[in-house]
């Protein structure tokens, strides 16, 4: 059984603020929930399935259901870091396909900038079996991605300037987004001259950290038909963990090598068919490895591919992260997966910022990454299409 065409995204909402000192985490979950439901033309009373990750405050999805006054018949608090929300949409579609719910709400909220939530991730849990063999040596999130960048450079000749082009592209897109945290276009030189955080990653190779959040509403086909709103068809989903594999960790690829083919197969499409891609961009190297792993270019050829301008909207070969992505727009709670889905929905609805709207956008891909490229991660891929796709 496939989820292809069994569920639709009817509503999407991104919190417009990047600093939210005056609302609690729970309230931000509620605010984005109401925003996405209003976008769909639905209300909280319609929701019978609820999805959030384990970084939501309280006791999984139960505390948030209580706060918002929901009594869903299906709750899923799958935790895979920043890839959680992309996975949740796949899980919601599966739940709808077998009749477990008909209106599924997925929410994300975070406040790492003004306090109120930790920056995400669970590195250092003393009960985790890997902790003693890693944390004592001082790994940080950027340094674990830097290890991957260094090895990719070693094996394939990738350069810092090629990685910088990914930030440059994000900044060219972000200048059209009035809500983006960073709206100034940057050059390759500015990226390379920004302070080194963890060699070879500079400060501008890293994403922003923001307060914020987002939500999407996934509905059954008969509900999508009844709504006034253009709905987005869910065509395929794949997810996979990648880990250190009994000491055989290979830093040159991500879990997208598994999640991507699963999603493409379910959707009945190939990378060549994709008009727009939202790719998780915690760091520039995250994008580079992921586009290779999803098959948009050959393994190791990501550097030249990016350098050619392929990622630039609206006319590049693979217009990418047209909201400015995590690198320039937002990365709420260090978890960018939700915003990847939201911008893909905007593109398919012709609602992206006009300067970066892809012409005749029929098929889009959204990919989430959680955890760390240098150790263990979650990967999740969604293929989305217009209502008649």
């Amino acid at each position, binding site marked *: 059984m496939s989820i292809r065409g069994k569920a639709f995204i009817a509503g999407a909402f991104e919190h417009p603020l990047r600093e939210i000192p005056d609302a609690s985490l729970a309230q931000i979950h509620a605010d984005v929930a109401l925003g996405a439901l209003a976008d769909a033309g639905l209300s909280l009373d319609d929701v019978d399935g609820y999805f959030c990750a384990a970084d939501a405050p309280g006791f999984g999805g139960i505390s948030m259901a209580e706060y918002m006054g929901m009594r869903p018949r299906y709750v899923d608090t799958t935790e895979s870091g920043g890839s959680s929300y992309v996975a949740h949409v796949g899980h919601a579609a599966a739940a709808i396909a077998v009749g477990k719910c008909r209106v599924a709400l997925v929410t994300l909220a975070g406040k790492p900038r003004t306090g109120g939530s930790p920056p995400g991730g669970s590195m*250092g849990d*003393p009960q985790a079996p890997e902790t003693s063999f890693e944390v004592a040596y*001082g*790994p940080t999130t950027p340094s674990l991605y830097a290890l991957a960048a260094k090895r990719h450079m070693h094996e394939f000749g990738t350069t810092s300037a090629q990685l910088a082009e990914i930030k440059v592209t994000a900044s060219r897109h972000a200048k059209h987004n009035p809500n983006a945290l960073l709206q100034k276009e940057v050059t390759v030189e500015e990226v390379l001259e920004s302070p080194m*955080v*963890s060699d070879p990653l500079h400060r501008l190779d890293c994403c922003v950290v923001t307060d914020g959040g987002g939500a999407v509403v996934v509905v059954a086909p008969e509900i999508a038909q009844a709504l006034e709103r253009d709905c987005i068809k869910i065509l395929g989903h794949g997810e996979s963990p990648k880990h250190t594999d*009994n000491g055989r960790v290979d830093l040159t690829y991500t879990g997208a090598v598994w999640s991507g083919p699963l999603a493409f197969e379910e959707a009945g499409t190939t990378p060549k068919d994709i008009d727009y891609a939202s790719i998780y961009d915690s760091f520039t190297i995250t994008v580079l490895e992921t586009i290779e792993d999803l098959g948009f270019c050959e393994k190791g050829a990501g550097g030249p591919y990016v350098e050619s301008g392929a990622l630039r909207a609206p006319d590049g070969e693979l217009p990418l992260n047209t909201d400015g992505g995590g690198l320039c727009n937002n990365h709420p709670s260090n978890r960018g997966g939700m915003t990847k889905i939201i911008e893909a929905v905007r593109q398919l609805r012709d609602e992206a910022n006009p300067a970066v709207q892809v012409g005749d956008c029929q098929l889009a891909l959204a990919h989430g990454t959680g955890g760390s490229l240098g150790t263990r991660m979650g990967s999740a891929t969604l293929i989305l299409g217009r209502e008649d796709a």
Partner: protein
Amino acid sequence: MTGELPRPEPVVSPEARRFWEATGEQRLRLQRCSECAAVVWYPRGICPDCSSSNLDWFEASGRGLVYSFTINHRGTGPYEGIGPYILAYVELEEGPRMLTNIVDCDSEKLRIGQLVEVRFADTGTGTALVRFTPVETVADG
């Protein structure tokens, strides 16, 4: 580059106790699966390759090659404010790649593929952290 790195005490799980006891004696011990012969890293109670729980301990050579490394400028926790330090993966002669630090080293000269050997950093609690240093001949010096 930084001189002395922090030496945080590891959390010792029952399954990894013999690994940590050995480090306290300046020895690097690894597990090998007696069913499928896989070297198991990190230490645990089940072979992740074949699910066997028949794991034996053996003494590793303490040598390896640098698989990847980074000079980290912004440490956190005990590493906050100590200055740049090297985080690396070392591929042990026995196969596994382990996360570690490279110490006593000119970071400008460090390369992927560089031969390194083990150094034990005593935590003062009967265990030691496993770090590595480049192997250089006198002639290179």
